[in-house]
């Protein structure tokens, strides 16, 4: 069903719902004074907005009803009735979410009402990193920040570094305008969820900007390689919806799905067959499959490929490639045959944990798709939602950090998302000035001199371009509740700073952002009421397949710590659905959501295969030390029956020093011990590729909680 009814009760575009100002002592009940003009007790309103928990940009609708909060006014505690957000659901009109929403998106309401939000602008009190701040007034904060920014700008604007989220939309447009007004370099991102490799590959191979769209729903045989698209990859809600369609959405047709991945991810778990690839062997695997496809004469359009690529594939030796992947050639042959013979084959490839050769892998998958003739076709790869404004760049953040003087942090946490070896902590404590816009004091904001807290996404106006959408899409969210605290939207803050510095800066409002793209038959009000501007994908054009270009040959060397004897395990941190790049860790719902793999709650374990665990005398719940050549951490172990022997994985999320009461000091940060090695073409941190050693600690097996400790359906006493 569609939530048609929400049209009736949509917010008017401009008016937020005002909060009532009735007041009384806490100990007496307050009558429901708010009436027709305001929020009605027991009555719900639904307002469209956009989810900002990840860059997928799902359109959401938000349920608003009356709520009660305690405020202090003139020394007295009052209970105040305000319009409060009760629930977030997907916007049924939005082509990305289609009315659905992932666990993380639904928890956004907890970050809004998080008890540890920054409630007012703050100035650093203690030394950097201690997270001691004193609240100040906005005027004071903006004065001070703009003064020192002015000094920096006139000295060397190139040393201003703005770190922001890897998303494009009105907000990032404002940031870019701000930086260009300052003659500062464009913003960077250090998020682990930037998917720069996928973007780069599609740019190199197809000349597209953005992550290509896989039309899973209409494919019949899908080979996934390295992309955990049902888990923490690009747009989980969109692909989960597509997956449902793919499986059982078409009468009589059930899509068949093979996943080749170095970890049994959520995606691999949903596959009909999982090919356990050795980490970093995705290019080899794809080359082997391509070669077999060519050999079986199942390639539909070999001429598509650049000759150099074709030649290199033809010269590949399947047997040795298969050995590198750790797979059986017969199995590869069978899968290749099925893939080639299918009506609508599709290869979905990505780098859930990027390796140094990931670009090569994704490009190889694009070539394979080209051979299968599904570029731009239904059930194939579709052109991406073209980025309407440039995304923040990715690349060697740690070096740029070192080279800069003035750092502005917009929900970015370099201390957390860079390896310890990259020295972010040291750099941050030496920087001249750090300003954070984050509404939470996270590991990096703890180093900030000033915190100018941003509104929560649900309190602010923004237009977001979803990372993946069929056709062109902009999702719009407008505020409909009063900000809970004395916070300010980032664009207002930036404009205020710019004005103080004597620069003219106009914020890019969602209205401005959308208006230039409005088709003649739609108005801004319509867009605002619907929650976005969505247009059908341009029809795939017959034979006009995009140019397939040759990717630079990327090297296949993945082991960056070659001391195999000392560091026998391959370590691969991954983006989980709950914590994503680690930013979900402060939400109690996410912490208590059992991990899909280990069922762990409140503490992320290290996944280790049963064989190695037996060898090292490790049992589930034991604490282990994971040691890389650079650093080490301690975490509980989970003996994962589906882990590839010798491959140790861990979800990113825990290990924050500062991130609110639910995340601070909890668990370990797997990124910390990584080698500071980047994927060469994009500068993305290579999550995979670090080797580690593991040892059991003689600590009491406490602190590891599983919701369902048992992972086999049968008891251990099956038969006698």
């Amino acid at each position: 069903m569609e939530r048609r009814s929400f049209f009736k009760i949509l917010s008017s575009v401009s008016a937020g719902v005002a909060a009532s100002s009735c007041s009384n002592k806490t100990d007496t009940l307050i009558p429901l004074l708010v009436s027709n003009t305001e929020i009605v007790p027991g009555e719900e309103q639904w307002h469209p907005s956009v989810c900002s928990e990840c860059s997928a940009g799902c359109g959401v609708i938000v349920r608003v009803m009356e709520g009660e909060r305690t405020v202090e006014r003139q020394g007295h505690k009052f209970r105040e009735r305000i319009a409060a957000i009760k629930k977030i659901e997907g916007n049924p009109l939005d082509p990305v979410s289609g009315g659905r929403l992932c666990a993380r998106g639904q928890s956004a309401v907890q970050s809004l009402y998080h008890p540890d939000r920054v409630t007012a602008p703050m100035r650093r009190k203690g030394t950097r990193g201690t997270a001691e701040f004193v609240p100040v007034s906005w005027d004071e904060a903006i004065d001070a920040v703009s003064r020192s920014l002015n000094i920096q700008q006139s000295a060397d604007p190139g040393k201003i570094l703005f770190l922001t989220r890897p998303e494009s939309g009105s907000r990032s447009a404002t940031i870019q305008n701000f930086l260009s007004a300052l003659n500062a370099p464009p913003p960077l991102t250090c998020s682990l969820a930037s998917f720069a490799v996928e973007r780069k590959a599609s740019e190199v191979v197809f000349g597209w900007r953005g992550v290509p769209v896989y039309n899973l729903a209409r494919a019949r045989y899908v080979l996934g390689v390295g992309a955990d698209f049902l888990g923490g990859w690009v747009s989980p809600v969109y692909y989960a919806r597509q997956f449902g369609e793919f499986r059982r959405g078409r009468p009589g047709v059930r899509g068949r799905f093979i996943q080749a991945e170095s970890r049994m991810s959520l995606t691999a778990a949903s596959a009909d067959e999982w090919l356990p690839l050795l980490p970093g062997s995705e290019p080899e695997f794809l080359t082997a499959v391509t070669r077999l496809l060519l050999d079986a004469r199942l390639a539909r359009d070999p001429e598509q490929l650049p000759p150099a690529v074709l030649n290199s594939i033809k010269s590949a030796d399947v047997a040795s490639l298969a050995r590198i992947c750790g797979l059986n050639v017969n199995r590869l042959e069978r899968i290749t045959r099925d893939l080639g013979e299918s009506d609508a084959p599709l290869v979905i490839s990505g780098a859930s944990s990027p390796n140094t050769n990931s670009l090569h892998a994704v490009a190889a998958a694009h070539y394979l798709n080209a051979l299968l003739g599904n570029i731009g076709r239904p059930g194939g790869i579709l052109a991406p939602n073209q980025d309407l404004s440039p995304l923040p760049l990715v690349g060697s953040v740690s070096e740029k950090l070192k080279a800069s003087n003035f750092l502005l942090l917009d929900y970015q946490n370099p201390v957390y998302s860079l390896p310890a070896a990259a020295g972010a902590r040291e750099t941050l404590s030496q920087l001249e000035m750090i300003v954070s816009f984050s509404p939470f004091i996270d590991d990096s904001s703890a180093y900030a001199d000033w915190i100018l807290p941003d509104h929560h996404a649900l309190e602010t106006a923004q237009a977001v371009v979803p990372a993946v959408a069929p056709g062109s899409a902009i999702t719009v969210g407008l505020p409909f509740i009063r900000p809970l605290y004395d916070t300010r939207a980032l664009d207002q803050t930036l404009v205020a700073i710019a004005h103080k510095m004597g620069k003219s800066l106009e914020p890019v409002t969602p209205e401005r952002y959308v208006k230039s793209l409005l088709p003649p038959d739609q108005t801004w009000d319509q867009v605002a009421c619907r929650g976005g501007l969505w247009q059908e994908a341009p029809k795939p054009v017959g034979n006009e397949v995009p140019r397939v270009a040759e990717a630079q040959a990327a090297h296949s060397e993945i082991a960056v710590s070659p001391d195999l004897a000392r560091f026998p395990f391959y370590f691969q941190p991954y983006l989980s659905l709950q914590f994503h790049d680690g930013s979900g860790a402060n939400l109690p719902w996410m912490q208590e959501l059992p991990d899909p793999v280990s069922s762990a709650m409140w503490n992320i374990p290290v996944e280790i295969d049963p064989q190695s665990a037996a060898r090292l005398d490790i049992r589930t719940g034991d604490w282990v030390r994971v040691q890389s050549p650079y650093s080490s951490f301690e975490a509980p172990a989970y003996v994962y029956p589906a882990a590839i022997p010798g491959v140790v994985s861990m979800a990113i999320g825990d290990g924050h020093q500062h991130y609110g009461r639910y995340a601070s000091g909890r668990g370990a940060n797997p990124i910390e011990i990584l080698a500071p090695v980047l994927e060469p073409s994009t500068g993305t941190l290579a999550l995979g590729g670090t080797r580690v050693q593991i040892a059991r600690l003689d600590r009491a097996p406490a602190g590891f909680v599983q919701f369902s400790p048992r992972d086999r359906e049968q008891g251990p006493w099956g038969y006698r």
Partner: protein
Amino acid sequence: MAIDLDRCTGCQACVAACHAENNLPLSDPESAAKGRAFHWIRVDRYYEGEFPSIRVKHMPVLCQQCDEAPCEPVCPVYATYRNDEGLNVQVYNRCVGTRYCANNCPYSVRFFNWFDPVWPEPLPLQHNPDVSIRMTGVMEKCTFCIQRIQRAERDAASEHRQVADGEIQPACVQSCPAEAMTFGDLNDPESKVSRLAASGRATRLLEELGTKSKVFYLERSE
């Protein structure tokens, strides 16, 4: 309700949706370690076979709303019973907390309030006013989002019409990205859920116990 295990990806969107809708108490590491975390719907995961031919089975389990529910007759005070619509109702204010029902639930989907739940300010702003905040000492469980059912029925009644198939969606069903869950009236043979339940793929969890549960699992067959 019908749950298509072939569509289910185990993403647990349903779990979060349930928490948001039904004011489930927050756990903390200590209480979670004591087995006192609340998940009215949970995604059971089982591994089958050994590496490399290992498979994962994800199975959302919520109150099965049995027609012949083992939890009902054992309650000494009628705090749980089956109403006319076939829902297993838990009446919080009648419950005295014997926890017998929870022992007798073969699906282990009943949860007990060991303490009064506490949320730090301002998290209570998120509470759904349509759903009670349960106090200490009472049992609770999935209600199939009875507040949504009642709302839809009231809306339909005031508009003098029948509730349409698919109009009522519990929070978990509403949130499921893969649309693995279908909710509807099993008494209506034309409803989508009835058709799914009648399809060959449908089984019920622990059917051998004869609980006549009303959640049908569509097998993940090829």
